[in-house]
């Protein structure tokens, strides 16, 4: 591996990422499976970085999963997306920051389609007006929430309490990055580092002390495949994809996996459990599994947030091996303790600032 070659590719893909005044749209999957990640993200943005992040109470799912389950015509999805734009416009924001990669990909694709087919955009404007009376401006800047954390990785690094370093050996943790397919595969120029060697998560890991490892199936889909997971009869596809990735990364002995798509960490986490149940096969050192994290969780960990406030107990594959390697101060017995300390509830004020 020649790092200089990768650096040259990374240089070719510079992406414009707004530096403040974000309009945040949430992710269906992240809210259901990794709610602590969105909470940590907003805390980092608002409290650590002092950024203006607005969330509209009336925004909805972009329809992404429904759209990619082929349940709606493309016009339906475009008009729901147009409604999100309208809410943003009405709130006086221009920088759209989705939490979800499927949403990010959809927004990117729709803006591209409108660019090439202005008549489609016109039709959607009419349909939105007819259905809701709303009008919209297109976002000035579109960046996934992981792009924004990438942009501020140094600031986060400067405030970090921990580094992604094995406390015992002093060696950087070996980290596998898994990028959601819809981040850059459709439009390579819209992703930090492009589609083939994305830099968005690599940049965070390098900055926070870890070491990224490349492995042959790095670009392979986690196996969500929408209908390929959502319908029970198809799930063999989904687990086979994840297994292929685990087998491919195994010889590189990764300490952990970091992801930027909300769905991938769920699959990479749960399918390890399933493979063990089905075949008695366990990945990771000493068979303890390869912990899988969202980028918000990793940022939260290095900033010293409590692992159980981050929601690491919602993972099926235990995260403790990584916490122990880094030497994070946490209380193992509180993992499933659902009491909330007074300071905690105050911290998670839900009102927009």
């Amino acid at each position, binding site marked *: 591996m*020649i790092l200089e*070659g990768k650096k*040259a*590719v990374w240089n070719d893909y510079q992406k414009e990422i707004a530096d403040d005044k974000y309009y945040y749209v949430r992710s269906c999957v992240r809210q259901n499976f990794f709610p602590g990640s969105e909470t940590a993200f907003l805390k980092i943005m608002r409290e650590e970085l002092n950024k203006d992040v607005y969330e509209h109470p009336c925004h909805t799912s972009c329809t992404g999963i429904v759209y990619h389950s082929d349940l709606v015509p493309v016009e339906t999805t475009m008009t729901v997306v147009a409604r999100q734009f309208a809410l943003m416009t009405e709130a006086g924001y221009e920088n759209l920051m989705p939490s979800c990669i499927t949403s990010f990909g959809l927004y990117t694709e729709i803006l591209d389609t409108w660019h090439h087919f202005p008549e489609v955009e016109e039709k959607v404007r009419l349909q939105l007006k007819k259905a809701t009376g709303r009008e919209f401006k297109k976002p000035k800047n579109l960046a996934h929430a992981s792009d924004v954390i990438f942009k501020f990785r140094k600031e986060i690094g400067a405030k970090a309490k921990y580094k992604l370093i094995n406390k015992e050996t002093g060696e950087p943790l070996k980290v596998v990055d898994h990028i959601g397919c819809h981040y850059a595969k459709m439009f390579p120029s819209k992703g930090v580092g492009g589609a083939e060697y994305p830099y968005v998560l690599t940049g965070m890991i390098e900055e926070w002390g870890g070491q990224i490892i*490349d*492995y*042959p199936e790095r670009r392979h889909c986690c196996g969500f495949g929408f209908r390929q997971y959502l319908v029970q009869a198809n799930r063999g596809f989904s687990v086979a994809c994840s297994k292929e990735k685990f087998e491919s990364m195994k010889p590189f002995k990764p300490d952990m996996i970091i992801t930027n798509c909300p769905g991938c960490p769920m699959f990479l986490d749960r399918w390890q459990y399933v493979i063990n149940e089905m075949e008695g096969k366990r990945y990771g050192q000493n068979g303890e599994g390869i912990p899988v994290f969202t980028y918000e969780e990793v940022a939260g960990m290095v900033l010293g947030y409590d692992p159980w406030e981050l929601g690491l107990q919602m993972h099926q594959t235990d995260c403790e091996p990584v916490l122990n390697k880094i030497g994070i101060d946490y209380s193992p017995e509180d993992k499933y303790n659902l009491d909330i300390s007074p300071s905690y509830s105050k911290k998670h004020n839900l009102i927009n600032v």
Partner: protein
Amino acid sequence: MGKHVVVIGGGVAGLEVAGQLSKIGFEVSLIEKDSRTGGHLNKWYRLFPDRRRSSEVKEYLNGITANNGINLMTDTSIEKFNRHKDHFIIITSGGRELIADAVIVATGFDLFKSARKEEYGYGIYDNVITSADLEEMFRRGEISLTNNTIPEKIGIIHCVGSRDEKVGNFYCSKLCCVTAVKQAIEIREFLPESKVFCFYMDMRMGGALYEELYREAQEKWGVSFIRGKVSEASETIDNKLLIKVEDTLAGRPLKMKLDLLVLMAGMEMSEGGKKIAGIGGLRTGENRFFAATDNHYGSNKSNIAGVFYAGTCTAPMNITETISHARAAVVEVIDYLKDNN
């Protein structure tokens, strides 16, 4: 005659043009940006279809350009290029002013920069090389991996940077197929224990003796040809390359582990040619090569009277075609200068 013709580019086409023009009595200046003439011939070890040494062709070209009073300027490029009445004023990088009655552009091609096909990992993965790198190994007389071991399984990818919208090249470079066949045979000659796989979309064996060479590669050398474009390469922990391709004739995706991957880089309009096009107002086509005035009977003519093209600055060509095209350019110059007397 005493007319002065400036030839830009000292590769195969430029040397042939300069040699022929000087032979029949023109005053010729030959401008070459590198320190020596010969262009891509200097890099190649042996040539298809007969695998003669490239040095033999160079000897021929040196022969026809020697002792004819050609004014050769190496390490020189063109800074300015203007038509003034019936002649051209050319300013070189050395500040020299040349007055020419006609100009022949023979700026050739550049090999596609294979790092642009990011998914093949050239410049990133250790044992991914180009056809030009392989010729260099042939010249050194050893084919080895970065850890100095000998490769056993070698893959050759056709159409790298050709027929590919993603890199902006819609055209076929036409010579990579036969280069792949030639190099596959040579690898087998060098390394009799090796296995060689060529991954192609179409075998474009249109030149004289190409098809025969393809057949020889299969029959005599046991080279495997798999119809499918390689989708990506990645590096395994033991430093091998894992490629993904569909065997489209079997209708089956396959993964293969290789020791060495050779990319058949296509041909692109040269950077030098682009520069001349810019400063001289010469028209280029959608494929970025110089656009001749007529595809059938004007392939040497530019949009500026008195400026002619020779060789691969107009399209991918093999050496045979390049030399023929260069000689045709000589005829155009004679014709033009006769009319302009």
